[in-house]
């Protein structure tokens, strides 16, 4: 019943020898949820942001399989990432929420606060053994509202051929990054690419630089934060990074990379399967550079959680909870992790994972130190996140200096 892990995926996993990312996983055993089921619910709706064609198909497959265990058919829809939360809010207001909803982990508390989600304890879903940080991100007022099958973070991906040809080593510090990016830049090709979009995705990509340098979302107008922002400004200013980063999503950044239009990029491991399908692309992955040697890299905890919204009927919610329990049971967790090169969010499964796929050990370790975006601010995170991407945009367009941009971001974050 669970979708078999493709042999190809195992092979690809083996390629990940040099992976060294930064995040954390801890926890214990998993188990499927029970669920008292009644009524004659035959189909459920599910909403997520996996719009990429192959990713969408893979999730459809997984949802179908889990739907079968609960005896329902699943209508699976995906919308672009940036439009998911506004759409969910509108669906909440018009009582047209889906039965199963995927949310990016920092959005859960905000949505839970509106009353659109139901706590999972009433369905008897097993919430034990999860990595503390991801469980905390899915918890609001002491109740668990969302569970993630797997977690991940972002890293520096680079084109091995391009680095070799330019005689450039993998950068470890910001200065090395700037120098490498400049030397890798050619006509029709940039040295580096990030997502500096005016969305939460842009914020997410900036966080490793902000946090590793000692910056803090509670106080954005610090020299540490300004240094981080200055790095991005310098990369664009020197022409090593396209100004189009202002408009790129992570998917666009990936497209640029596989098309050979950028030599390095910031992205997540879930892109690996697509990169592997690209012929003649020899890529490597490394930790995101830090400003000074010896600084500890801190990256944001990534991972999408599944929730059971307050949909039309209790019977539907019960069914949905059973599907959710299936998605987050150890079998599916493991399968999902292998498919996307992410890390199972139950610690026991994660350690079994590293036994089965030793090359992922570095990945699992890397997730250990990852910080949840809502850890400090909770429901106030979206406001800080908006402030951060606004500051990034203002600084990269040259509208304001990094210091001025961050000062304003701090004002708007703490203002009315």
């Amino acid at each position: 019943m669970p979708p078999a892990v493709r042999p190809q995926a195992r092979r690809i996993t083996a390629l990940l020898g040099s992976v060294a990312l930064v995040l954390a996983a801890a926890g214990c055993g998993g188990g499927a949820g029970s669920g008292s089921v009644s009524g004659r619910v035959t189909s459920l709706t599910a909403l997520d942001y996996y719009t990429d064609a192959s990713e969408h198909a893979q999730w459809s497959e997984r949802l179908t399989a889990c739907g079968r265990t609960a005896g329902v058919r699943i209508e699976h829809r995906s919308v672009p990432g940036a439009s998911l939360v506004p759409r969910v809010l509108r669906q909440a207001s018009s009582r047209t929420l889906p039965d199963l909803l995927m949310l990016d982990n920092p959005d859960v508390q905000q949505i839970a606060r509106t009353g659109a989600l139901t706590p999972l304890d009433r369905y008897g879903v097993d919430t034990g053994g999860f990595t503390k940080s991801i469980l905390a991100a899915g918890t609001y007022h002491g109740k668990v509202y969302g569970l993630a099958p797997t977690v991940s973070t972002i890293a520096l991906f680079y084109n091995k051929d391009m680095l070799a040809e330019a005689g450039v080593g993998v950068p470890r510090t910001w200065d090395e990054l700037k120098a490498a990016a400049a030397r890798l830049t050619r006509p029709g090709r940039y040295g580096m690419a990030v997502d500096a979009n005016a969305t939460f995705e842009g914020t997410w990509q900036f966080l490793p630089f902000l946090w590793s340098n000692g910056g803090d979302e509670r106080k954005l107008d610090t020299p540490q934060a300004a240094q981080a922002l200055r790095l991005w400004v310098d990369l664009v200013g020197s022409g090593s990074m396209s100004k189009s980063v202002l408009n790129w999503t992570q998917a666009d950044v990936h497209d640029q990379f596989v098309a050979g239009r950028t030599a390095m990029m910031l992205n997540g491991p879930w892109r690996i399967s697509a990169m592997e399908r690209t012929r003649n692309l020899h890529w490597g992955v490394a930790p995101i550079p830090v400003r000074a040697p010896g600084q500890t890299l801190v990256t944001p905890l990534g991972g999408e959680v599944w929730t059971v919204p307050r949909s039309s009927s209790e019977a539907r919610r019960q069914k949905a909870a059973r599907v959710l329990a299936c998605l987050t049971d150890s079998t599916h967790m493991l399968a999902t992790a292998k498919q996307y090169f992410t890390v199972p969010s139950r610690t026991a499964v994660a350690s079994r994972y590293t036994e089965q796929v030793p090359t992922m050990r570095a990945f699992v370790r890397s997730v250990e130190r990852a910080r949840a975006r809502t850890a400090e601010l909770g429901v106030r995170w979206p406001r800080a996140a908006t402030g951060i991407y606004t500051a990034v945009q203002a600084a990269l367009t040259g509208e304001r200096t990094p210091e001025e941009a961050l000062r304003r971001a701090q004002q708007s974050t703490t203002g009315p």
Partner: protein
Amino acid sequence: MRNEGRWEPVARWLFVTPAVGYLLLFFGLPVAENVVMSLRDYTATTFYTGDAPFVGPRNYFETLSSDQFPQALLTTVVFIVGSLAGQFTLGLALALFFARAFPLGGVLRSLLLLPWLLPMVVSATTWRWMLDTDTGVVNHALRALHLVPSGVPWLTDTSGALTSVILVNIWVGIPFNTVILHGGLRDIPTQLYEAAELDGAGPLTTFRHITWPLLRPVAGVVLLLGAIYTVRVLDIILVMTGGGPADATQTLATRAYDLSFQQFEFGRGAALGNVLVLVSLVFAVVHLRAGRRALHG
């Protein structure tokens, strides 16, 4: 039914009632409802709980005193003025060009209408792709012609993005201006031009003393309608720039959309919407008074 009976006036009104009812429901009521909404505090939970407390004019204070308001207002003004200037000048030039009779003139003029008829989302999507800094055809052509060394940052620069959305709005509006102004030109009596030619007037003098004075009423209507259409433009901006980068293309209309439908602050969105209504109303009054009076003598 036949002769003027007691029922006659009622019967007449029955013809108008459905349309009037519709207009009241879909224009009158929303405008009134927006005033009410602007005095309440809506949040993401409001529509779930139905709880939107009365807060008086707070939404107006907050919206109008925020950092973004003066910027959005300025952007709106630049967007309108830039669009109108471009649409009108180019539209008038094309109208003058097509005023001359030449083979295929009529067909060519009709085909010119296409940009105006296309859904704005379609035009904006196409332009967004054409204006891409690194891969767009516009920069490709500019580089090939050695006009710019590296390419213009059309959508990735604050002034570039505003210029881009104005250019596209001009492109969309040119056909409308051309058609109306062309009609206006055709209504100018031929004898006036013949007389001018006999007096030995050059094309510039003829334009200044005959064409322009007689075209002015039509020109006024075109500009006012253009302003009314432009003030509400949302599609082009949302599709091309999403209001960015760094809010450089955020107008009053896109801000109102953003507040209501992205941030779920319907109260503040309504407050900004009412500012928009006021702006439109000024145009409308000018349009209905001066414009039409001049046109119909």
